[in-house]
């Protein structure tokens, strides 16, 4: 198993718990590995944020389509009628 994969299992609490405990011990003893763990953890956060931004962009695109294209006229009318009440 590669070092990156071992760090992943430890950081994301995946796989064999014994392996994770060994990785944790290595991280405590090895500054280089500890450093990699810190940046890998931040990388997961950035990837998550990137995924969320992509999702928001996709949602906005769907909404724009529903509120602009001719084929969704009934949908728009239905929504507008709710706010006209």
């Amino acid at each position, binding site marked *: 198993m590669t070092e*990156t994969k071992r760090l992943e299992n430890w950081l994301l609490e995946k796989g064999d718990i014994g392996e994770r405990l060994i990785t944790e011990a290595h991280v405590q003893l090895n500054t280089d590995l500890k450093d*990699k763990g810190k*940046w*890998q953890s931040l990388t997961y956060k*950035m*990837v998550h944020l990137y*995924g969320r931004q992509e999702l928001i962009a996709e949602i*906005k695109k769907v909404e724009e389509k*529903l509120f602009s294209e001719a084929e969704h006229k009934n949908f728009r009318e239905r929504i507008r009628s709710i*706010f006209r009440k």
Partner: protein
Amino acid sequence: MPIIAKAPTKSRNAVITDWYTKVFPKACTYLHKKGADLETSKELFQQAIVIYYEKITSEHFEPRLSDEAYLMGIVKKLWLKYHNNVTQTDALETLEIRDGHPLEPAAHKLMAFLKSSGEKCMQLLQSYYYENLSMKQLGSRFGFRTERSATVQKFKCLEKVRNTVKEKALSYEDFLD
């Protein structure tokens, strides 16, 4: 049962469209009765989708209700939060779905860099870590012939992005403050 669970092969775009056509009118009826306008209703529904999507793609979620029931429940909670915030600050932006913390400027810069320099790796990584796709699904989306090659490429990308994150974060003075 949620749409994604019923039809895992359906595209995300199609699922979002279904949620809009089936649930958004009901959300609007509820929100309008509470005093929300169309723009606010749109914004709250967008946030509800993000929250619900992240819930159903998480590993431990076992749905017991329909998509509509979950989305409407989230919309109602968001409305309460929004209403309380508006009465205090009169600003929709204060409703944060990002774990309660707005992005620091340095994180914005880092994200912009990652988007411009490593879009393909970021796409691959988010498909696995955010969308929670399997290696098989990852393989078909990105054209890997085997699950093994998808795994190898995923870890290569992870290491590449990790190195970029380290290099860039260390160069932004305010990043680790």
